[in-house]
């Protein structure tokens, strides 16, 4: 199934364009998507994930056409 994926912040995800459609298996969770995209563990703990504009926990199962957004804040203030 397809999801729409975008990310903000200092993330660089090898081989994945920002604001693009991704193929994921049915039943994939947010945690599973982290694995599929090879997100580094030190980044995973600071990333907020929004699905269709609502913040969701890592156990959330993705659905067809979900708009998934990763946000990794940068330091300074």
């Amino acid at each position, binding site marked *: 199934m397809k999801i729409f994926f975008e990310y903000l912040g200092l993330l660089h995800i090898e081989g994945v364009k920002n604001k693009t459609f991704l193929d994921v298996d049915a039943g994939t969770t947010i945690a599973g998507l982290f694995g599929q995209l090879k997100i580094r563990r030190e980044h995973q703990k600071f990333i907020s994930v929004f699905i269709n504009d609502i913040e969701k926990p890592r156990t959330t199962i993705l659905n067809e056409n979900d708009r998934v957004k990763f*946000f990794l804040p940068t330091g300074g*203030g």
Partner: protein
Amino acid sequence: MKNFSYEKLTERNSPKIKQKLSEAVVGIAGCGGLGSNVAFALARSGVGKLVLVDFDVVDITNLNRQQFFLSDVGMKKVDALSEKLLQINPQIKIEKYQSKLTDNNVQTIFADVQVVVEAFDKVSEKASLLKAFGKSFFKAKFLVTASGVAGFGKSNSIQTKKLAQNIFVCGDNKTDFLSEGVMAPRVMIAAGHQANKVLELLEQLN
């Protein structure tokens, strides 16, 4: 107190938001570069109550971007900031917490606020507050966070973007203080974005 008048303080503010601001309650999570500048802007705008949270004391290295003075060094940031805000508006209500924001106290501290301003400098603290906003308790409140305020120049790369239904982010989402340092102009631009978004949100609230 030199003939203070709330009406006079807010006389030149936008008439359509005046009444809402006098009754507004805004939380400031972190009273450093972003937080002190946001608090100044909101106090000058006539916001009725601020909830200030910061565990730290003023250090001389803070003076390059934070609204403190040499005479404040060593003071609790929440105390030094409160003093200054009361010099702008002696009628402003201020609730102070000299503590770290944790999963255990965040709901209690921000129970009555309409909008929270995330003004921390550490990524871990920013992420922690964002995580708290994923809980149902915060669904009816707004969070205005900041990311990418470091360095100098590139003024127009600092923008306000919608992250989620009730969460906005101000900054360029790229520049990091570890590599670029933090300086007054860009921090103040980002703080201006945050304060301005807070006013917009308060104007929209019933």
